[in-house]
Structure formats: structure tokens, C-alpha cells
């Protein structure tokens, strides 16, 4: 505790930007009171595997002796942790599970007992695997997602852009000394979180720089994959083999190519080399890669719980401060996850929240107290922003369902599913139309779950929406995110459904928690998207008569490309109302919520 404060008094010039992994370590920090295993006994790791764990898009954080930490955490997960039932439902994942052999029931070790139980059961909603083949025993979860390479790259780039200036500012001693930890991590995020420093009057210096931050804060451009030099550097640093996908569509050269499941054996073998990767995070990353976990809420919760694990197992290395070191650890986890699959906006917001909480930790806390505080913060985030928010949304939306309605939904959104089941429990008589599309065919899982609960359902594919829309009274859609210009960023095909509904004057209701809102704006689906597996387009599983594209000649292969988009942007004029935990708002009110209420969750 005292050690930490001592370290702050000495202004430390923080190295940001690219530098070689063999850079001399930072000036030694104080030793913290260690509650965990002894420090600096494990040999320092070689640098190369460590550097490989960084994502191609992220500028590597300063390399501390946190390598030692990694060795410790790898040794920790252990016997005595029962395999929680939910995780056994992960579809194709069992081999890795036995290897990792972990997964304690996550919230159980936190002080607030009944709170965690509540979250456990309700989290069952989100924690469903998504094995594509068998729909029966493994109900798929899910929201829609959007990939965003979020605060990491953004912040890292910002940090890179203003290296010496900020470092100097942060060196201001005195009252601003305690604000330094606030300053440093806040540089790594987009502006608004820093606005929370308004609360502390002493942090005026931080305020001013925060203002400047916010002004520059139009979210800076993300890594564009058509930038040759950066892609090259990124390739050298990545964990996964960046195979150059042949026939990438020109229009989408700026997006990262899809990483498919064939990377799995490679990653499994790499596990033992990645010493600073926590096994829980590794596991979650592999689940993303395989597509077992999909849906905005499910992914976000899984990631946060993996981070909880990692935080619990974390021990501050000697001569490091908890705040900075933990933040850099989280960043390295995030870059690994980005490599497995680009982040969704919900995940990005959650990471921002977590980093902000870390930065705000009062210095008087001991390490164990700090860790407990963070874990409970994460639980609260999950509970308030997701679980309770969903209950509120369900309550609101169920009032919009009347007897005799025909409700249409597209794909598989967990909030919409909750709404339908809740309305059914209330005894309302209605008919559901589930619209589905290739190549993901997520609607089939939703269909199965609804029929099992006794709802009358009609199933069609997206081409038939003009046919079925004559009979539909309301359309309920989920979203991965809602952007500041009211555009709904959601599973590809949502825009078409909303358009046809609009043409037939059927109201469209989007159900989305407020934590998924974002200040970004987007006009079309091209500038920002996620590319899926191109082979999924060419092959139609289950229809042997359809496989026309099996034998392609060389000439055909040269000229034929497959494009598998995962998301699209629905213009706001097709949307009638957005149901959020803040109430039912029109699409034009989204930037209001982003701006006004975003501070709220940071003040938790």
C-alpha cells in the first residue's frame, strides 16, 4: 500500500509506442504485500512467445516483468475446481476442456452470495453454446454482435499519437499524483470516461487534458487492413497463422479475413507457450474462434467472467503497481481475444468499463481487497447492465404484444426470445414467425426452443418475407449495437426484414440493452463489418443435390469470390421504436443516452 504511493511520487516517463521487446524493464516498483504465491521465483520467459500473444492491431504495451506473473497464473488453475455444468454444454470443445481442466463456477467465490446465485441462474440464458449441427440438446444462445476493435487500438493509437505530451502532464506532482493512474489508463480509452473525473475537484489538471481528449475524440479510425506495412508487422506478431485468404473481395480489403476453426490445433499447441495468458481467457478465446459462443450478451458475459477469474488469480509482481500492471494484463488478454474473433461493441464497452474501474481503485486498498472490489464490480455490471436490463426490456416489450398478434422475428436474439416466452407465460395468444437465413441458420435453434415451450410458430427463410409480411402485425428484432445516428448494427439480413416491414407498414421494434449503444456513426454496411467463412456460402449443408460449386476449374476459381458478411446496418427510418432498459425510445434519442447516461455506469 505504502509502496504504491511511493512509486507514484517519482514521475515515471511511460514508454508508449513501438519498441523492441528487449527494452530494459521499467525502474523497479515497490514490492507489494503479496497474498499469493512468492514472486520472482519463476524464470523470466523468453520474449518471443510473449510478444506473439499480442494482436496484430495492438501496439504492445510496455513490457514489464509481468512475464513472471504469467508463469504463476498458469500454475494455479487446479484441482479442486469443479467443472461447472454450463461449460460442459460447449459443443465441440471437450478436448480442450480436459486439457485446461478448469472452470470453477465463477461467481461463487465472491462475498455476496445470494447475488451471485441470482446471476448464475439468469446467466444460464446467455451461456448457451452454439454448435451448429445438433440443435436438440444444445440450445444456442444469442445476440447479435458487432466486431469492433475497440478501446485497445484506439487508445493505443491515441497514446502513440501524443506520447511525450501526455507523459509530461501525467508527471505533474502533488495533487495530480493520485490522478496519474487515472490519467494513464484514461489515455487508452475514448474520452467520455474521463469526464467522470469532474467529480474530484482536485483533479483539475486531469480535467483539462480530459477536455482535450474528448475534443479529439471522434472515435479514431481502427486498424485498416489495407495498410500494407501494418498488416505485415501484425502478421509477425500474431499467435494465429494469418493465412492470406485467396480471393478476398476488393470492397472488403479493409476488414480482417475470417479465421476459421482450422487454427484450433495450432492454438492448442501454443497454449503452453503463452505463459501470460490466463487459461480462462484462452478458453473463451477458443470458444469465440470456433463459433461456439455467439451473441453479444453471451460473449460479453463469458469474457467478463474469464477476466474475473484472471483477476482472482492475479498477483502483482514485485516492483509493479496493481493498477498499471493489471490494466496491461487485461489489454493483453483483449488483444488475444481480438485475434480469435473481432470484438463486439458490447464487449468493447465492457472492457472500457473494467479498465475504468481498475483505474479508479482507491490506493488504500490491499491487493486482495482490490481484487475483490473488481470482481464485485464485474458482477454488478453483468447484473445491472445485462440481466436486470433484460428484465426491464422484457417488461416493456411485453406490453406491446396483444392477443391475436402475429409477431415476426429474425435470427436468434436472446432478448426477443425472452420477450416471447414471457408474453406466452402471461397467457397472451399470439403466433410467431421465425425468419432465418443462410449461412448461419440461427433461427432454427430459436424455433426449436419456442416450439418446445408451446408457442405456435411458422418458419420461413428470408426470401419469403414479402409473402409472409401481409399477415404480420409486429416485428421484434435484436441488435448487436445501436449507433449514434440511430443506425442499428445487427445480424446481416436485419436490414432487409426491417425494410420489407416498413414497406408493408408493420411496426419494427428493436430490443437492445443500453450498454450496447455506441457513439460511432455508420452509413452503410461496408465501412465496418465482420467477414465470415467464405466456404460457408459455397456449400449448402444437408442438400446433396445443391452442391454445384464442388468442382471448380482454375479459371472459375480465379474469377469467383464468396462473400460472407456477418452484420449489416439498418437505417433508422425503418425503426419504429427501440426498447431499452431506459424505456422505449425513438432512434433519434440514442446519442442522448450515450452522452448523458454513459457517465452513470462509470460512477458505480
Amino acid at each position, binding site marked *: 500500500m505504502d509502496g504504491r504511493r511511493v512509486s507514484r511520487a517519482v514521475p515515471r516517463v511511460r514508454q508508449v509506442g513501438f519498441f523492441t521487446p528487449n527494452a530494459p524493464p521499467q525502474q523497479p516498483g515497490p514490492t507489494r504485500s503479496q497474498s499469493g504465491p512468492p514472486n520472482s521465483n519463476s524464470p523470466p520467459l523468453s520474449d518471443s512467445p510473449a510478444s506473439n500473444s499480442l494482436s496484430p492491431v495492438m501496439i504492445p504495451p510496455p513490457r514489464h516483468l509481468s512475464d513472471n506473473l504469467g508463469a504463476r497464473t498458469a500454475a494455479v488453475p487446479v484441482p479442486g475446481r469443479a467443472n461447472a455444468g454450463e461449460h460442459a454444454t460447449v459443443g465441440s470443445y471437450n478436448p480442450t476442456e480436459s486439457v485446461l481442466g478448469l472452470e470453477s463456477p465463477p461467481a461463487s467465490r465472491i462475498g455476496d452470495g445470494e447475488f451471485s446465485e441470482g446471476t448464475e441462474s439468469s446467466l444460464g440464458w446467455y451461456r448457451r453454446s452454439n454448435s451448429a449441427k445438433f*440443435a*436438440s440438446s444444445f440450445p444456442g444462445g444469442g445476440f447479435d454482435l458487432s466486431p469492433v476493435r475497440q478501446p485497445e487500438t484506439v487508445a493505443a493509437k491515441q497514446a502513440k499519437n501524443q506520447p511525450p505530451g501526455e507523459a509530461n502532464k501525467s508527471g505533474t506532482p502533488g495533487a495530480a499524483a493520485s490522478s496519474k493512474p487515472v490519467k494513464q489508463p484514461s489515455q487508452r480509452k475514448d474520452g467520455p470516461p474521463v469526464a467522470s473525473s469532474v467529480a474530484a475537484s482536485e483533479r483539475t489538471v486531469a480535467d483539462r487534458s480530459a477536455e482535450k481528449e474528448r475534443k479529439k475524440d471522434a472515435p479514431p479510425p481502427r486498424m485498416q487492413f489495407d495498410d500494407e506495412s501494418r498488416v505485415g508487422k501484425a502478421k509477425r506478431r500474431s499467435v494465429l497463422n494469418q493465412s492470406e485468404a485467396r480471393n478476398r*473481395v476488393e*470492397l472488403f480489403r479493409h476488414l480482417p479475413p475470417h479465421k476459421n476453426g482450422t487454427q484450433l490445433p495450432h492454438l492448442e499447441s501454443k497454449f503452453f507457450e503463452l505463459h501470460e495468458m490466463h487459461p480462462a481467457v484462452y478458453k473463451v478465446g477458443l470458444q469465440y474462434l470456433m463459433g461456439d459462443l455467439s451473441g453479444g450478451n453471451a460473449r460479453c458475459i463469458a469474457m467478463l467472467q474469464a477476466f474475473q477469474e484472471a483477476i482472482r488469480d492475479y498477483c502483482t509482481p514485485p516492483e509493479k503497481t496493481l493498477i498499471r500492471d493489471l490494466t496491461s494484463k487485461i489489454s493483453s488478454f483483449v488483444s488475444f481475444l481480438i485475434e480469435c474473433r473481432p470484438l463486439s461493441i458490447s464487449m468493447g464497452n465492457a472492457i472500457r468499463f473494467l479498465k475504468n474501474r481498475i483505474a479508479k481503485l482507491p490506493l488504500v486498498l490491499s491487493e486482495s481487497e482490490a481484487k475483490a472490489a473488481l470482481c464485485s464490480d464485474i458482477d454488478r455490471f453483468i447484473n445491472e447492465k445485462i440481466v436486470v436490463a433484460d428484465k426491464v426490456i422484457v417488461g416493456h416489450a411485453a406490453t406491446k404484444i396483444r392477443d391475436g398478434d402475429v409477431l415476426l422475428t429474425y435470427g436468434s436474439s436472446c432478448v426477443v426470445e425472452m420477450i416471447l416466452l414471457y408474453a406466452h407465460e402471461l397467457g397472451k395468444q399470439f403466433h410467431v414467425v421465425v425468419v*432465418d*437465413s*443462410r*449461412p448461419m441458420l440461427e433461427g*432454427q435453434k430459436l*424455433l*426449436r426452443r419456442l*416450439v*418446445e415451450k*408451446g*408457442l*405456435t*410458430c*411458422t*418458419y*420461413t*427463410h*428470408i*426470401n*419469403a*418475407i*414479402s*409473402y409472409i409480411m*401481409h399477415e404480420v402485425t409486429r416485428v421484434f428484432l435484436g441488435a448487436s449495437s445501436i449507433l449514434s445516428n440511430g443506425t442499428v448494427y445487427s445480424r*446481416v*439480413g436485419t*436490414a*432487409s426484414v426491417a*425494410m*420489407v416491414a416498413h*414497406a408493408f407498414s408493420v411496426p419494427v421494434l428493436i430490443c437492445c440493452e443500453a450498454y450496447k449503444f455506441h457513439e460511432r456513426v455508420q452509413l452503410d*454496411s*461496408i465501412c465496418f*463489418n465482420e467477414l465470415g467463412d467464405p466456404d460457408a*456460402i*459455397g456449400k*449448402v449443408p*444437408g*442438400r446433396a443435390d*445443391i452442391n*454445384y*460449386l464442388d468442382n*471448380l*476449374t482454375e*479459371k*472459375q*476459381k*480465379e*474469377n*469467383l*469470390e*464468396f*462473400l460472407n*458478411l456477418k452484420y*449489416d*446496418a439498418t437505417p433508422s427510418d425503418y425503426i419504429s421504436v427501440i426498447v431499452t432498459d431506459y424505456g422505449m425510445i425513438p432512434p433519434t434519442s440514442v446519442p442522448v443516452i450515450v452522452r448523458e447516461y454513459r457517465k452513470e455506469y462509470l460512477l458505480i
Partner: protein
Amino acid sequence: MQDIQALVNELVYKLRKRKMEGSDTSAQLTVELLRSVISQQKMSENQAASLIEAVREIGVKLIAANPVELAVGNIVRRVLHIIREEELSLMAKAVQGMGVDDEHNNGVKDNDHVAKILTRSPSLHSLLDSAKTSSNSKGKADKIANLKLKNNVLEAVNYLIEDIKICHEQIAEQALELIHQNEVVLTFGRSRTVKNFLLAATKKNRSFQVFVAEGAPKYQGHVLAKELAAKEIQTTLIADSAVFAMISRVNMVIVGVHAVMANGGVIGPVGLNMVALAAKRHAVPFVVVAGSHKLCPLYPNNPEVLLNEMRSPSELLDFGEFSDCMDHGIGNGAPLLHVANPAFDYVPPELVSLFITDMGGHNPSFIHQLISEHYSADDFNLQQHTAS
């Protein structure tokens, strides 16, 4: 007449069992059948009327076998129109011929008048008049006229067969006027007309790019993509759900359809309305290419239901996988799970920018004019027994 009956039954069977895919094949088979019918028709008093009756009778059977295959009805009505036209032109010549023989001044005037009446487009007045005059002129030169009629009709029907065969080429000739260099085209499903259209545009070394939407649940888009790629056209295959996302970067949508209705609306593969709406939203021209045998003189009334066909749910859901869902039922035993798999989609005329037929390019509002050129009003409702 035996073999005719057999042929008719065979075609009816094929239509009813949906063994024929596509309006082109149906049209061709129908017209060939009708040609045989006409050529084998026995000579009779009122040749035209007997021909019309024979064709109409067979036409009703064919249409009843597959009401959704509008090309069959189109061809039947075309042939009927041909017969009527030939009859009219022969009568007009005969009347004029009579006038020349008689060399009566009065007669000339009368006969001119009669000829004019005969060749005028139908109106109430002319119909009443022609009823009188036809009885006058029928007396003379019966047999020769009949033979001539049959020959003319057969000749015209042969032209019709030719037209159907080469409609693709005639449409493709217009491709170079529409597609320029570096154009980005979107198409939906697979149409032979569109394929020929696009291939024709590659002459003169114009290179352009094509996005093909796969067109579930038949996935014919895969076949088209393969064919285009083989001819070195840069092709990208996308899922149907991505059409809205991609259409903002597309210059033109070119599609083939199943049938064109009299109001300018089209019946096309399911999903076409979604594409048309997206094109309208992004102000992308929506071009329909169709041979003239697809022009249907009927106006669509509730086309989603009446002019639609439902296909098997197995194309969407695997029966084995969903067998447990089929078992669920509510109290009265009604199944909980329904599947809708329509085959066709209706696109209203407001969404169509241009029709390209073998007779040139037209607006949707012009379609009714084309129809009046090819069809007679008497034939629109084939069920009734026409007097003439």
C-alpha cells in the same frame, strides 16, 4: 385425333406433376403441341371457328394442369390471336377481292367499308357491324380460304416458335447499350436470359463485375456464378440476406422473371420483392429481362396467394432433425410448427425501372400496349364459349 389426345395428355401430365422447370420449356412444348393440333385439324365449314374451338379446349386443359405456369396460357392465347388475325386478314383480302371482281361502284364503296370494318380494332360498333358483314362474305370461296387460313396460321405459329427460341439473342443484343465498363451488376437466382445478356456485354472487351445472390431455397445462383466465372466475368456470390448491405455499391440490378403481368408487375423467384425494394431505396435501376412469351394478359389479383406455389418444407428444415418438434401439439392436436416455402414473389410495377424484351426496351406502363398487340380481348377468359 388419337395421337393428338395422347400428346395432350402427356403434356398435361408433365405440367401437373411439375416436371417442367421454367417458362421457356413450357412455352416451347405448348406451342409445338398446338402446331400439331392445328395441322391435324380437319377441314370444316367455319375453319377459323373450329380451329379456335379446338385450341381453346386444349388450352383450358393445359392451364388447369398448372395454373401458375402462366407461359402456357400465354402461348394458347397467342395462338388464338394468330388464328383470329389470320382470319381477319383473309376476310379483308377476300372482301376486297370481291369488290374488284364485281366492279360495281356501289359494291366498291360497300366493300371498302366492309374491309375497313373488318380490319378495324374491335369496338362495340365494329363488332355489331362485322357480325352482319361476315355472314355476307362467307358465301364465296370457302374451301380455298380455309386452306389458306390453315397455312397462314401454321406459318405464323412457326414464326412464334422461332421467336421463342431466339428471344435470348434478341434481348442480348441490347446489352451493350446498358452495360458500360466497370459497371457493377447485381442479379438474383439464375435466369438464362440474364446469363446471355451479361455474356453479350462482355464483347467489346467491357469488363464489369457481377454480384450474384444465391436465391434460396433453390440456390440457382450458385450455378449462374459458376457459369459467369467460367466466362471470366468477375463474380461474387453472396447470401440473400446480404443484398441490402451490398446494394449501395451496385449500379444496376438485372433479373429474369417468371412472368410479366398486364399492369407491368412481375412474378419472379421468391425474394425478388426484397431485392426490388432495396433497389428502390438506393435508387438503383431495376431492370427486368423477359422474352415476349412471358407477357401475360391477366391482371394480378392477390398474386401472393393465387399465383404462387408452395414448395416442400424439407428444403428449409431437415425432417429428421425437427421430428421432435413435429410431435408437439397443443390441446386440440393442431401442430405447433408450420413452414412457409413459397416459390414465387410478386413485384409491383412501381419498383420496376425497365423491361427489356425481344421487342426492345419499355416502361412498365407500356406493357398493356404490347399485350394488345399480341392478344385478343376475346381470349382473356378462356373458359367461356365464344360465339364466333
